[in-house]
């Protein structure tokens, strides 16, 4: 079978499943319309920001990164967290987890796209993004950590796109995936997931002028919190999928992910505590941002409510996860997941990016509050990310479960596929 034939067939497959994704229940349409509306509001806000300048944001020369970079950082964690499904599935051969690993990989794809969008809207000149293309622009690799981040993020995106695409396509053709075409990439993606979040942490921790970030513990903290948010999101997502698609998803993955979270929430709190102790007990320049963050300083208290909310949420989720009730009642588990997700979002976003700038390098206290424009754009990007995830999961699941397969599947494979229900969308596609 020639490669070019496969290429065309693969593209046709992608087209078909995308077309298929436009079919759905009224609930699906409502969900997508709401998300589209939010995304459009965000797009409009971004267009205005581009035309009038970043003056529409709350950022300043003192606090030069804000909500966008905060969400970017969090998004990288979400993407990296998905690997917590890959590891049990591929390293420990957890059969049930293996069945739903794809959901984690699709989440990674959506999260990376989300991250790239957050970087895009944070740029003063997004049209100059081509300056980042190696060979065409002037890619300052390997000196700039940001170029490493570009490499690892796009690499992780490609890795996951390849693994998801290949496995789905093979499933669609009803052929057994060949290990050499995906297993190396899966294992690579495990290390890669760690690297995307370490590199993102190094972006900050490598800056000597910012004592709050300039800590060796930042990367471990990032990884630990990533392994909170990823599993938390997937636990809820799997329940939603089961509810809306009726797909039989076992309790196994949920149990495994909960166990992961039980460890990581504590680890995260422990590392946060270590940072606090070191900063506050030592005092001096390192304590400045911490004091401002937790208690306010020099009459400025902008982040105090944020961080204490995060602390309450994080501690709350840790307690809930360790209560026996979290095993008996799924709502307790879900509450813990939501608390953990929001808690880490604050801690790693507003609670991490902003104190890096307050006090400033000249120890000036200039506070930052996101503007409406920033909230609109942020909401828009999250809505777009959720749309992407919805579509991806929606088209992947029928293929994965074998409900949707190639009409030629039987010729392509010796073993006859039994119950190949053609979706009506699939039939019409070749005409389009």
């Amino acid at each position, binding site marked *: 079978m020639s490669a070019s034939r496969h290429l065309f067939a693969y593209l046709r497959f992608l087209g078909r499943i995308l077309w298929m994704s436009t079919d759905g229940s009224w609930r699906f349409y409502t969900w997508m319309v709401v998300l589209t509306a939010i995304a459009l509001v965000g797009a409009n806000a971004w267009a205005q920001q581009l035309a*009038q300048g970043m003056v529409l944001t709350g950022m300043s020369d003192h606090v030069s990164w804000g909500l966008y970079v905060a969400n970017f950082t969090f998004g990288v964690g979400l993407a990296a967290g998905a690997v917590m499904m890959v590891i049990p599935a591929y390293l420990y051969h957890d059969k049930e987890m293996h069945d739903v690993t794809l959901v984690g990989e699709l989440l990674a794809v959506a999260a990376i796209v989300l991250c790239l969008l957050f970087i895009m809207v944070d740029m003063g000149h997004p049209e100059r993004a081509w300056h980042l293309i*190696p*060979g065409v622009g*002037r890619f300052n690799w390997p000196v700039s950590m940001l170029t490493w981040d570009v490499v690892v993020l796009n690499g992780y995106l490609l890795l996951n796109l390849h693994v998801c695409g290949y496995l789905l396509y093979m499933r669609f053709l009803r052929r057994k995936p060949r290990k050499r075409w995906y297993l190396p990439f899966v294992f690579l993606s495990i290390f890669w997931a760690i690297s995307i979040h370490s590199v993102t942490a190094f972006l900050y921790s490598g800056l000597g002028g910012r004592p709050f970030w300039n800590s060796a513990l930042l990367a471990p903290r990032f990884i630990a919190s990533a392994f909170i948010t990823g599993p938390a999101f997937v636990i809820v997502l799997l329940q939603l999928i089961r509810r809306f698609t009726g797909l039989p998803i076992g309790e196994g993955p949920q149990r495994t992910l909960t166990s992961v979270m039980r460890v990581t929430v504590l680890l995260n709190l422990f590392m946060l505590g270590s940072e606090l102790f070191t900063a506050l007990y030592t005092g001096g320049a390192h304590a400045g941002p911490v004091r401002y963050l937790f208690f306010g300083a020099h009459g400025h208290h902008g982040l105090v409510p944020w961080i204490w909310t995060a602390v309450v949420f994080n501690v709350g989720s840790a307690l809930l996860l360790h209560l026996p009730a979290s095993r008996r009642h799924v709502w307790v588990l879900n509450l813990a997941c939501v608390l953990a997700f929001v808690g880490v979002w604050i801690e790693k976003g507003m609670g991490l990016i902003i104190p890096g700038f307050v006090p400033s390098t000249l120890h000036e206290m200039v506070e930052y509050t996101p503007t409406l424009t920033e909230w609109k754009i942020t909401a828009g990007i999250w809505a777009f990310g959720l749309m992407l995830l919805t579509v991806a999961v929606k088209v992947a699941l029928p293929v994965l479960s074998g409900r949707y397969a190639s009409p030629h599947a039987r010729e392509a494979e010796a073993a006859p596929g039994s119950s190949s229900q053609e979706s009506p969308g699939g039939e019409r596609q070749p005409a389009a």
Partner: protein
Amino acid sequence: MDNVLPTRLLCLLVALSWCGCNRDAPRQLQPPPGPPTGVETVLVPEKLTSIESDEKDALGRPLRVPCATCHSLADARPMPSRPEQLQAFHRGLQFRHGELSCTSCHQADAPRSLHLATGQALPMTEVMTLCSQCHGPQARDYKAGAHGGMTGYWDLSRGGRTRNNCVSCHDPHTPKYAGAHPVMAPRPPLPHSEARAHE
């Protein structure tokens, strides 16, 4: 065998990053500074040759009266030893300069010129030599270009520079630098208030 691909990608990336730098066009630098041909001019402030009067000109600036207007008269009154004793034109002169008296610097019988500690006469315009007698470290720094401020060229092969005189900044009678009210009043750090009002 499958690990070849990432390695190849890595090599490609390295190659591409480097080839970006090799496109630099050759650059012609400017020639190094030549021998100093420019001149250093030391300012001769008006106050060395004239004094402010109560009268103002059309622009509201105080009219200056040249010293010679009065001091060219043969019978100028003898110089007092303390400024408080001044009764006429120089009345109100503030004096805060250590334990000096008028005649420490001025010649009692030739008010248009100064004298060094040795008694040697010195024209008003040579005042810097006089100052340097006591203010050695400042004179040394000035000579080195590290005191007093200047305008013009750092590179004397391309142009001259003008340097302040001691008395440009320090009134010899009250030499402590006067201070000022700062310009560029501080603004709220966020430059966005007006743009934000649109929201």
